[in-house]
C-alpha cells in the first residue's frame, strides 16, 4: 500500500521554510556552508542554497557534497560506490555547516557524516536539515530543521522522489 505524504508544492514550501529558519538561527548567510549527503541530500542542499540566495543576496547560492561511504557502520554491498566530496569555498574552518539529507531515520548516516566532516576541519557549528523525520533513532541525534515530522512504523518505507533523480517531487510512504 502506498500513500503520498508530501506533494511537489508541499516539498517546495518545506524547503522555503527551512531556508528561512536557517537564516533566522544563524547570524548572517556569509558564514554558511551547505553540504548535501548523497544521493538525494545533494539535490535538496542545492535547492536550499538557491532559496538562501534569493532571500539573502549576500549568500553565494552554492552547495557542496559530503560523501560518507567510508565512514558508515551499516555498509551493504550496493552502497560502496564513492561520490566526490565537494566543499564550497574549500574550507569549513569556523563556518556554520548545514548538513542536508532527505530522510532522518536511525541517525547512523548523520553520525558518519559528522565523522567525515571533522576530517576536513573544525567548523564553528554543525546543524542538520532534513526533509522528513520518520523517527526510530538509534543514536542521540536530532535535527535542527525539519520539513515534516512523519510518525511511521519501523516496517514502513519512506521514499523521497526528486525531479533530479526520479522525474517528480513527492514523498511516499509504503508498507
Amino acid at each position, binding site marked *: 500500500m502506498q500513500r503520498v505524504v508530501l506533494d511537489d508544492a508541499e516539498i517546495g514550501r518545506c524547503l522555503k521554510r527551512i531556508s528561512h529558519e536557517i537564516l533566522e538561527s544563524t547570524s548572517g548567510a556569509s558564514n554558511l556552508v551547505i553540504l548535501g549527503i548523497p544521493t538525494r541530500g545533494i539535490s535538496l542542499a542545492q535547492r536550499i542554497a538557491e532559496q538562501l540566495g534569493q532571500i539573502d543576496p549576500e549568500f553565494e547560492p552554492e552547495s557542496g557534497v559530503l*560523501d560518507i*561511504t*567510508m*565512514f*558508515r557502520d*551499516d*555498509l*551493504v*554491498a550496493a*552502497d*560502496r*560506490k*564513492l*561520490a*566526490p566530496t565537494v566543499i564550497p569555498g574549500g574550507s569549513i574552518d569556523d563556518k556554520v555547516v548545514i548538513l542536508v539529507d532527505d530522510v532522518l531515520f536511525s541517525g547512523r548516516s548523520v553520525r558518519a557524516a559528522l*565523522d567525515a566532516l571533522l*576530517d*576536513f*576541519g573544525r567548523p564553528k557549528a554543525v546543524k542538520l536539515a532534513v526533509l522528513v523525520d520518520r523517527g526510530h533513532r538509534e543514536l542521540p541525534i536530532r535535527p535542527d530543521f525539519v520539513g515534516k515530522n512523519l510518525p511511521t512504523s519501523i516496517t514502513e518505507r519512506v521514499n523521497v522522489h526528486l525531479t533530479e533523480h526520479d522525474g517528480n517531487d513527492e514523498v511516499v510512504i509504503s508498507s
Partner: protein
Amino acid sequence: MRHLVSIADLNLDEATYLLDNAQELSRINEREVKKLPALTGKTVVNLFYENSTRTRISFEIAATRLSADLINFSASTSSLSKGESLKDTAQTLEALGADAIVVRHPMSGAAHQLAHRGWISSSIINAGDGAHEHPTQALLDALTIRQQLGAGSDLRGLRVLIVGDIRHSRVARSNVLLLKLLGASVEVAGPATLIPEGIDCMGASVSDSFDESLGRNPDVVMMLRVQRERMQGHFMPSEREYQQMWGLSRERLKRVRQDAMILHPGPMNRGFEISSEAADDPRSAVLQQVQNGVAVRMAVLHELLAGDKS
C-alpha cells in the same frame, strides 16, 4: 567480489566501478587527514614469496590509509624459508586472524589456488603470480591513462603499445585483458623469443619491430622491465642488441607523439629498456602510476573487505 585473482574475472561494470572509486580515492592526497576509518578492525597480510618494494609498500600504505592493520610476511625472513607449504602458511595466517591476504608468488596460479581450493576463506588479492597476472598493476595503469585523457568511463578507440619482454610479464597479460575490456586496442612488440604463443588469442596484435609500431602513432607507449631474474637461457643475443632494437632511446623518444603517454611499471633499468631522457620526459607518467597504485589498492581492499559480505 570476494577475491581479485585475475582481470579475466572482472566484467566491464566491475572494472569501471573499481576505477571510479579509485579516482575518488586518489584525491585523498589533497586532504589534510589522509586516513579513512572504513576498514577499522580488519587485518591484511602481505604474503610475499618474491622480492618487491613498490607493490608491497603500496599495499601497506593503502591498507593503513583505510585503517586496517597490516602484517608483512616475506619469504626470506620467515618459516617459508624452512619449507612450509603455501597451504599451511595460508591456513596459519587465517588462524591468526587475516581477513585478506595479498600474495605474490613466483608460480603462476598460486593466488588462484589460495582463493579457490577451499583451504581458507580469507579474501585473496593477487599481487603478481609468476608470468600469469598482476591485476592491480593493470588497474593503476588504466587509471593513469584515464586521468590523462579526462577521466571518461572507458578507453574506447585508444591505441596502446606494450614493448619488451612480454613472455615473462604478468603486467603485460593483465594489461592486455583490462585494456581490451575497456575498449582500447593493444599491440605488443618485442623480440620473437620474448613473445609468448597465443598472446594474439587474448586480443593483442603482435609486432616484430618497435620502429614500425611507433610509426602507427600509439596514444600510450608502455615499456616493460627486462626481467633478467627470469631468464635462464638465451632469449636475446646480447643486452646491447636488445637495447638498440627494443629500448626507448633518445632517438625513438622524438618519434613518440607529443600528446602520448609513456608508462613503465618499474623498477626501471635506465639505459637499458628505457633511456634516462625518456624516463624524465614530461610525457612519462611513471610517478603518477606509483601514486595511483595506492588509490587502486585502496579501492580493491575496500571492495573486498568493507561492510557485510552478502
